[in-house]
């Protein structure tokens, strides 16, 4: 929060001629910045030193302290602030856009040669602090830890901390936070934090109080509906008498699909989507690709129905992708975990592995009352930032692995997968070639002998493994098809590469790319699919609650840009707990 001056960032005044006889110098003394005056005689010999950077408005409250090591001959010292371009051959306060508190008379100087009685005088041994409050644009000083009261009001922006000395022997040490302050600035800041929080909490929402209540209800309700917490949403709507726009069956459908995705049964999820929302995936080839990639991962995991219950029909291969791809929503990665209380448990045992249930224990009971809903928002918020980060990360790493390799790699997979049993993958660095060689006799067995884990590739079923290989080829074909139709897509390539890499390891669950197998990784794709479905139904792809949150975040950032100091005490996350 507080802007801290790094050591060595004070600029001594640049006028070299003057420095010859002023000899004002800046040194470092036990971590403090030490200023010493030279041989000044009268006010013409004064010189100021100011910080290299102005005080940033967004810091809210800025504070620094100066210890008077020696008052020198007359103790004509000034501590204060000045704007850029102010004459540095004078004490702070004497010139326009310059403000100072002087030690010899204790007066404050507000851009004027004549001071106003302000505080006590200060001399050797005193510690003088200067606090700039950028919320109300005032400044007060402290002496030996005691606040002296407001000295200046209506301060302009972009002021620099400034210290001026005049007579010989004056020495001061500046502390920009390297050492503990004498004045309890944290306490002062806590007061302003509390002030701003209560200001926000008591912000009038207009006379139409009922309407405000309704808006809040709608926010909560739409959030619940969005994530398919059908029973909770219905209960909420009943008690608050709000109307849910989407039909209950539609919510249930989405809920069903989400559950399938979260259970790792991607094949079924794709089927269900195609059945319930025909044409949706055809219009979103990127989404389909993501789903299929995930399906491949789940096959490795042994959770996808295609490998679990052998003999189910394979998804139809897609040949045409007429519409343009859509991006996944920014806030998509909310926590669409399964709601144990309002849903029948999934038939297969996978749900027990679903970490999201235990990961957000508070949320499952949320949502019946509006007061507890912010907690769920908080989780989803942190979640989404995580996902954006990881997206960004994968984006960069993708670029790093870079274009030059791209051609060769494509070959790898084609070869490796097309001829898995015979097995030579071009450059033999990958360990998995060995495994793939032997697996003609039974991959599952070989892995079981490894013994490091009870989990087995494709559930240890040979036929399933073959199905997986087959599916991999289809996926590869799909990628090539997409490349042809829409041009190269590095994200897709990375996705595919990561997924296929799983086969390279004896124990995919404990390998560098093994994180993909974690059930929590299903959440982002789940919300992407959910958003796509909602969008296709002309419903908002993001819940209004998340939009409001994003907007508030944006506003706080905007405040920082327009120098509204209060923004530093208006952090959104401090309200979400």
């Amino acid at each position: 929060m507080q802007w801290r001056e790094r050591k060595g960032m004070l600029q001594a005044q640049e006028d070299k001629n003057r420095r010859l006889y002023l000899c004002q110098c800046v040194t470092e003394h036990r971590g403090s910045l030490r200023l010493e005056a030279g041989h000044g005689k009268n006010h013409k010999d004064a010189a100021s030193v100011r910080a290299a950077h102005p005080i940033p408005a967004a810091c809210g409250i800025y504070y620094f302290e100066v210890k008077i090591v020696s008052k020198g001959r007359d103790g004509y010292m000034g501590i204060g602030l000045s704007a850029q371009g102010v004459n540095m051959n004078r004490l702070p306060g004497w010139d326009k856009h310059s403000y100072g508190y002087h030690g010899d008379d204790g007066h404050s100087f507000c851009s004027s040669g004549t001071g106003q009685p302000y505080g006590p005088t200060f001399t050797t041994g005193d510690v003088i602090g200067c606090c700039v409050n950028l919320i109300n644009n005032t400044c007060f000083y402290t002496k030996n830890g005691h606040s002296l009261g407001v000295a200046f009001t209506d301060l302009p922006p972009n002021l620099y901390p400034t210290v001026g000395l005049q007579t010989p022997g004056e020495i001061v040490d500046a502390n920009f936070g390297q050492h503990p302050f004498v004045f309890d600035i944290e306490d002062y800041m806590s007061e302003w934090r509390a002030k701003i929080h209560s200001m926000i909490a008591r912000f009038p929402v207009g006379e139409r109080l009922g309407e405000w209540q309704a808006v809040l209800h709608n926010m909560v309700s739409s959030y619940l509906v969005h994530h398919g917490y059908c029973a909770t949403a219905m209960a909420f709507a009943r008690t608050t008498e709000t109307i849910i726009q989407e039909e209950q069956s539609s919510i249930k459908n989405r809920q069903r699909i989400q559950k399938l995705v979260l259970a790792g049964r991607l094949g079924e999820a794709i089927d269900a989507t195609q059945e319930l929302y025909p044409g949706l995936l055809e219009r979103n080839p990127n989404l389909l690709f993501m789903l299929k990639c995930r399906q491949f991962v789940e096959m490795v995991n042994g959770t996808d129905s295609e490998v679990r219950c052998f003999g189910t029909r394979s998804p139809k291969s897609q040949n045409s992708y007429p519409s343009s791809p859509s991006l996944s929503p920014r806030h998509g990665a909310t926590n669409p975990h399964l709601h144990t209380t309002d849903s029948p448990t999934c038939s297969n045992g996978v749900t027990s592995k679903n970490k999201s249930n235990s990961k957000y224990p508070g949320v499952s009971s949320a949502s019946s009352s509006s007061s507890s809903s912010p907690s769920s928002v908080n989780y989803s918020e942190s979640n989404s930032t995580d996902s954006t980060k990881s997206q960004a990360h994968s984006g960069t790493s993708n670029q790093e692995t870079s274009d030059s390799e791209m051609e060769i790699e494509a070959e790898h997979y084609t070869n490796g997968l097309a001829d898995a049993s015979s097995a030579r993958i071009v450059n033999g660095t990958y360990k998995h070639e060995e495994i793939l060689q032997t697996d003609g006799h039974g991959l599952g067995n070989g892995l079981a002998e490894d013994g490091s884990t009870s989990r087995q590739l494709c559930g240890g079923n040979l036929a399933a493994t073959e199905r997986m290989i087959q599916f991999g080829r289809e996926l590869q074909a799909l990628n090539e098809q997409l490349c042809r139709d829409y041009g190269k897509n590095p994200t897709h390539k990375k996705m595919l590469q990561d997924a296929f890499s799983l086969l390279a390891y004896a124990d995919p669950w404990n390998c560098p790319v093994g994180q993909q197998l974690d059930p929590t990784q299903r959440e982002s794709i789940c919300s992407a699919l959910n958003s796509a479905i909602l969008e296709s139904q002309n419903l908002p792809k993001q819940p209004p609650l998340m939009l409001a949150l994003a907007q508030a975040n944006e506003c706080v950032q905007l405040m920082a840009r327009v120098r509204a100091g209060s923004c530093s005490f208006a952090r959104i996350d401090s309200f979400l707990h």
Partner: protein
Amino acid sequence: MACMLEAPLRISVLSEVTATSRHYVDRLFDPDPQKVLQGVIDMKNAVIGNNKQKANLIVLGAVPRLLYLLQQPSSSLELRTECAVVLGSLAMGTENNIKSLVDCHIIPALLQGLLCQDLCFIEACLRCLRTVFISPVTPVQLLYPDPTVIPHLMSLLSRSQRTQEYITQIFSHCCKTPEHQTILYNHGAIQNIAPLLNSPSYKVQMQALKCFSVLAYENAQVSMTLVNVLVDGELLSQVFVRMMQRDRPIEMQLTAAKCLTYMCRAGAIRTDDTCIVLKTLPCLVRMCSKERLLEERVEGAETLAYLMEPDVELQRIASVTDHLVAMLADYFKYPSSVSAIADIKRLDHDLKHAHELRQAAFKLYASLGANDEDVRKKITETENMMDRIVSGLSESSIKVRLAAVRCLHSLSRSVQQLRTSFHDHAVWKPLMKLLQNAPDEVLVMASSTLCNLLLEFSPSKEPILESGVIELLCSLTQSDSPALRVNGIWALMNMAFQADQKVKVEIVRALGTEQLFRLLSDPDANVLMKTLGLLRNLLSTRPHIDQIMSSHGKQIMQAVTLILEGEHSIEVKEQTLCILANIADGNTAKELIMTNDDMLQKIKSYMGHSNVKLQLAATFCVSNLIWNEEDGSQERQDKLREMGFVDILHKLTQASDPSLCDSLFLLSSRAKTAMQQYLA
């Protein structure tokens, strides 16, 4: 027509109300306990928030019946609980309701009820007790007659958050005297209540905090114990410091600051401790700021005044903290001209607090300016300060008058202010008026201020003399209060300093020798000192000495003998010897000493006293007696030589050399001057 219709209608409504009220009371007497219970529950719902209904039920005698049901062992627990709830609700009404409840002996009945095991019932009883005890009309001593009550309340503290809240609230309202503090202290109040400061409930925290503030007030025993108490491994003073953090509720900051202030004043915390200097003091200064509510500003200023009263360093710090001196000037701006026009409610509120604000500001100014000249200067330079004090001296509210005169007294310690602003604003006028008939506490302050105004360099001295102050001061010396006697005689002493013969005679006449000698045997050493001082001032220039001694010489010599023979402090004896020296300076008065061999022997012995000051005074006396230029000096010198004074003087000139301390040097040179009288 409408009016005519309305009147009977209102009557019928009234009678209807009484009728339904009676119905409620009647149901309490139903033989079926179930119906009684339902009746009480209905009554509960009927009285909530309805003061009229409450008054009706009390008038109709519901209280004794409810108390009977509450105490009856045969009543079901539910019924007893509901009765307690209804009684609690009745207590929430007007002060008259409380009075009726107390008259029905509700307190012992409810205290008895606390012996029950059921928590709900206990809580209902406590809630009702709390409401009764926090009312100003309830005598607090009703809590104490039964010695088992306090220990039982302590044991109930562990039952629930509600019992904690109610019990601590009862304690903090019922602890008004040092005896109450001791009772609570002896029953382990500190150990029992300290953990509640960390309670999850804000209400419990606050009540516990308030408890500590009343327990620690002017109580060294409690305060000394408090500093060593640990709450969850944290020192209590640190807990209080934490509660003063700026983001805490104002009420909590203020009460925590009060606790630390009281502990500091009781001597348990040093005034230079950081928790006082850097935390409590700034916190209290913040409470005086314009942003705070009027009540908070009053309380903050009073507490701050109390905190720094004895410590000049705290006064200096406070005087530069957050423009406190200027901030206080705002206390005089209520009701403001704006509020009068803007809205009546605000005006009413302002008016109610205006007196309190003014007296708090005066108190704080008095404390700030108690010791430091620079601070006094700063205060008198505040806008309209002297005018405000002058008008404060004649305000109707006694609290304001007292505070204003305290403030004036503080400022009157400044020589510069006495010479300038005090004279410019003729503060002596309202001060004299105040002295005419005021209660003792005001009188003490006012007369003390008057002492300073009568100092010889004060330009106000003349006009005060002319206003006939002597009679007034003389009457003060006859007061029962030692403080008033001291001030009276002190003022007379100041007045007599370098005064005209006329004034001196007037003082002696008005005071009367009888009273003067009564004061010389006053049990209060201060009074004695100032009376001697008065005598000394009266006996200053030679003609005055002779005149007074010719008329009162005998009594004065008697008194001097008495004091020199009595058990008195060095200061008193020194002062007496100085009087003797003054007498020795008179032309005719000298003879009173010279003819009194006994006295001469005394002087001789004091010249050989171990205390230099007494030696000095005695030598001074001798030197006056043998002074050459006066008639009959030769005979006196001879007489004293015979008595062996010369040897002593000689010894004194020898024994001390200039390198010794000042008074010894002075003594030897004084002795030398005396010796020279012989040599000449």
